[in-house]
């Protein structure tokens, strides 16, 4: 869209640039409240943790490469296994999807200039970083947790897990929960209130529906986890007996609380990926999504029903038969909204004219993997089969097809897809496709044999296995697959790094995308849009007249909001014009607050109650300063 910009428009853009400029250099990053920079910080941090989790995975596969392996030993294996799960779920998938993709893209897709609470957003990132460092301090000081990511009691109690390992885990997860909750609340308010006037809820991109569903799921699921962890720390640090059956506590309480969080968490992990898929597919098949309203409802329903299925993780616990049957039925019901989405993607591809470029390849790969993971998931709703195969490698195969196949594949496809938008450069297409095929082969080679070895009776989470049970060959294939998968992922990283320096200029819309982020320059300016875009469908970039109207508006000064640091707010459902919001500017308080809170967690871990108290006071002081009156801008 090379359009001659009249002088008046130039002047307005200059003005916006001045108003929205942040500090240069490191201080700029430390104090930024720009959702795009915060999104990028989430991206780089979570990718670093992805690398850590990947190294742990490779260690596990190397230990299990052959029977009676001696690479890690039992303790090293349990550390790697626990930290692999914790890292991938809490420090990689969730933060990269809601922190990086959600943060960067949701405001852009709804035509807003920032998130609703920019400083809370910055705070959310700094807390996430601090929590990640907190947990890895545990690892590098030789105190990694070893009770697995679901950390069942009484194994996780002091009696059986002495030392601070579990405390690093429990306090670290409470800590990350602060970050996720803040991001979730921010996304909800942003999606409800900051949509460009005209983007009524039925015109909202499916990507945003997915993130809205995820944000609500987080807000309701995390308290159960936090509660479980707080009770655990009361037991561990203060000698309480919440989970101690001998003293009148309840062991199963932990499992219930954990999975009340843990199963919605699965949908929290895959729904953003569904959102990414519903962004990439229309662009590359050049048609609108089939059954749009059904898909939107399905996204919400999945998040909702996801709260009613948790006990299918507990079919072997010996709950009453009626309980088991209820949860099996609920688990079957959730197949329906997933099936609707699946066949909506497939029929969209079939009826469109797909160009199988790198991002779409990842999405097609995702669809194939999700079918496998979904089908194996259904088998767990057959109670006797679940009771036979739970806690075997069959489960490990299933949830890696879901989490790696159905969540990480779209995330990687999304990295390629939005790379030109974020960097202004194109990735290398051939290498992009090669990286997909290597990763796809590695993924299947690693995880498919796990189904078989599980069906042959190999339990999960064992640091070694004997040679006479017929498991060896499959384990060798799995380990080779893991190295291949690592090579594929390195190809993705190498492609994106080299491309960010040497890639061709991308322009604002290299793929003919459907959603608003393609309307602005690449990379986008700090204020995202010089004109708040006009929206009259969920595919605003395909409404050429609306985009022409934006250009006209810029010339005339309509919808520009160049008087201050501002973005419009609209009504929650119909997106009628509501008011103009004066947005907060950059601030050092979020990072300072995160540091103060880190102090509380560190000293609670060390049982230094007085020092922890000092940091509680410091936190309150920082909060007061944050909310103090600021000098008015000129």
């Amino acid at each position, binding site marked *: 869209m090379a359009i001659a910009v009249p002088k008046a428009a130039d002047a307005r853009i200059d003005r916006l640039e001045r108003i929205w400029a942040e500090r240069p250099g490191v201080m700029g990053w430390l104090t930024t409240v720009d959702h795009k920079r915060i999104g990028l910080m989430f991206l780089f941090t979570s990718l670093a943790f992805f690398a850590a989790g990947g190294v742990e995975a490779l260690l596990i596969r190397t230990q299990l490469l052959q029977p009676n392996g001696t690479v890690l030993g039992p303790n090293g294996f349990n550390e790697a296994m626990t930290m692999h799960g914790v890292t991938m779920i809490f420090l990689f998938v969730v933060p990269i999807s809601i922190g990086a993709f959600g943060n960067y893209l949701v405001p852009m897709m709804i035509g807003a200039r920032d998130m609703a609470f920019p400083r809370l957003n910055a705070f959310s990132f700094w807390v996430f970083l601090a929590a990640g460092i907190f947990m890895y301090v545990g690892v590098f000081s030789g105190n990694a947790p070893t009770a697995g990511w679901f950390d069942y009691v009484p194994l996780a109690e002091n009696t059986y897990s002495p030392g601070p390992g579990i405390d690093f885990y429990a306090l670290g997860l409470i800590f990350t929960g602060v970050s996720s909750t803040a991001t979730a609340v921010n996304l909800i308010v942003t999606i409800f209130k900051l949509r460009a006037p005209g983007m009524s809820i039925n015109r909202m991109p499916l990507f945003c529906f997915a993130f809205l569903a995820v944000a609500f799921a987080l807000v309701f699921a995390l308290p159960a986890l936090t509660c479980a962890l707080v009770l655990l720390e009361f037991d561990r640090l203060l000698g309480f007996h919440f989970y101690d059956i*001998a003293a009148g506590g309840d062991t199963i309480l932990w499992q219930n609380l954990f999975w009340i969080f843990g199963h919605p968490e699965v949908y929290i992990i895959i729904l953003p990926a569904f959102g990414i898929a519903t962004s990439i597919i229309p662009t590359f098949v050049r048609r609108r999504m089939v059954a749009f309203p059904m898909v939107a409802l399905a996204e919400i329903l999945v998040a909702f029903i996801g709260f009613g299925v948790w006990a299918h993780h507990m079919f072997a616990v010996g709950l009453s038969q009626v309980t088991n049957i209820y949860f099996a039925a609920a688990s079957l019901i959730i197949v329906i909204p997933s099936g609707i989405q699946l066949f909506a993607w497939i029929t969209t591809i079939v009826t469109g004219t797909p160009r199988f470029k790198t991002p779409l390849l990842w999405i097609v790969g995702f669809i194939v993997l999700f079918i496998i993971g979904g089908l194996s998931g259904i088998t767990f709703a057959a109670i006797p089969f679940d009771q036979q195969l739970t806690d075997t490698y069959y489960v490990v195969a299933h949830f890696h097809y879901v989490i790696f196949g159905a969540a990480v594949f779209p995330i990687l496809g999304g990295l390629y897809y939005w790379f030109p938008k974020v960097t202004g450069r194109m990735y290398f297409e051939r290498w992009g496709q090669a990286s997909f095929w290597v990763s796809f082969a590695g993924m299947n080679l690693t995880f498919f044999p796990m189904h078989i070895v599980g069906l042959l*009776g190999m339990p999960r989470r064992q640091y070694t296995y004997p040679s006479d049970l017929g498991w060896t060959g499959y384990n060798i294939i799995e380990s080779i697959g893991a190295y291949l998968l690592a090579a594929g992922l390195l190809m993705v990283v190498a492609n994106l790094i080299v491309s960010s320096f040497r890639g061709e200029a991308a322009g604002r819309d290299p793929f003919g995308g459907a959603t608003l982020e393609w309307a602005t320059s690449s990379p986008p300016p700090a204020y995202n849009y010089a004109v708040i875009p006009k929206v009259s469908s969920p595919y605003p970039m395909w409404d050429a007249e609306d985009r022409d109207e934006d250009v006209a508006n810029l010339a005339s000064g309509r919808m520009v909001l160049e008087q201050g640091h501002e973005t419009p707010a609209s009504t929650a459902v119909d997106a009628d014009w509501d008011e103009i919001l004066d947005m907060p500017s950059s601030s050092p308080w979020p990072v300072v607050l995160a540091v103060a809170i880190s102090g509380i967690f560190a000293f609670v871990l060390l049982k230094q109650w007085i020092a922890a108290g000092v940091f509680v006071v410091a936190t309150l002081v920082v909060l007061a300063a944050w909310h103090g009156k600021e000098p008015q801008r000129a």
Partner: protein
Amino acid sequence: MKKWGWGITLGALLLSGCGKQSPLEPQSPASHDIAVLWWWMLGIAAVVFFGAVALLAIGWVRRDRPGLPFIGENEGVTTGLVVTFGMVIPVIVLVALFAVSDLWLVKRTGAPDPGTTSMTIRVIGHQWFWEVRYPGTRAVTANEIHIPARTRVQVIATTADVIHSFWVPQLNRKIDMIPGNENRVLLYADNPGIYRGQCAEFCGLQHAHMAMKVFAEPRKRFQGWLKDQEERAVTPATPEEREGRQLFLQNACAGCHTIRGTSAQGSIGPDLTHVASRSTLAAVTLPNTNHALERWIRDPQHVKPGTKMPALDLSNTDFAAIGSYLDHLR
């Protein structure tokens, strides 16, 4: 080994597979039903998978032509396809699956109804071995469960410490061992044989080395075995064995293990009254040979790192004496 008869039978069985652990080689009605359910689910899943992939393939073949084959572009038909494949067909399949597995089959694999079993065994999980008791008798053993074949046996599963899970896949599905709970599951073997089982809930450092074997035997042989297990330990015959017993009782061994008929009454480790009659050591970590037994008592922390059994500071001749004493506890 001194008593050859049993040793040879056991050895032959050990060599011929030493007990399998595959749910796909069922040896009981319950496991058989679950395996059949699996093959049915796999068949239906394969149809769904290849059907969906075929649709994607059509998308690839027709990548330059919009719309559906024959029908062309018709929003009503495409939405209809989503409803058919995404809702109608799944509802039918899932209702059928629910009825078969969760209403019918679940009863066949559930805990046995009271009074329908002729025998009960208590299995208690420990970090990291299985304590096995036969209520109504004095028999206590470890890591080996003997049952009469073709007999319904109720297992009461519980734990002495953390959560474990009792699982012998060829004979039935698993059941968790929860502190303060008494979960029940049915053991039934169609034929005599050895069936391997393993702890299926992560229970700490040596979760990998917490296996067991179920010996399903003809009823007569089982009763003979049970009678032997009720006996007190035999008294040592040779001077070396007597020396070994003395050392066992004087050192830490006796604080953790019980040998019925002696002053050793510990309850931390397995009952060793008839340890020599078992086929393996340390929860199926080592074969129960003279050599392996000595290696195990000399250096348990190397064989099974983290086990509660400490390494004792004794001389070579002392270890040999303890070894020969235990080796004679048939």
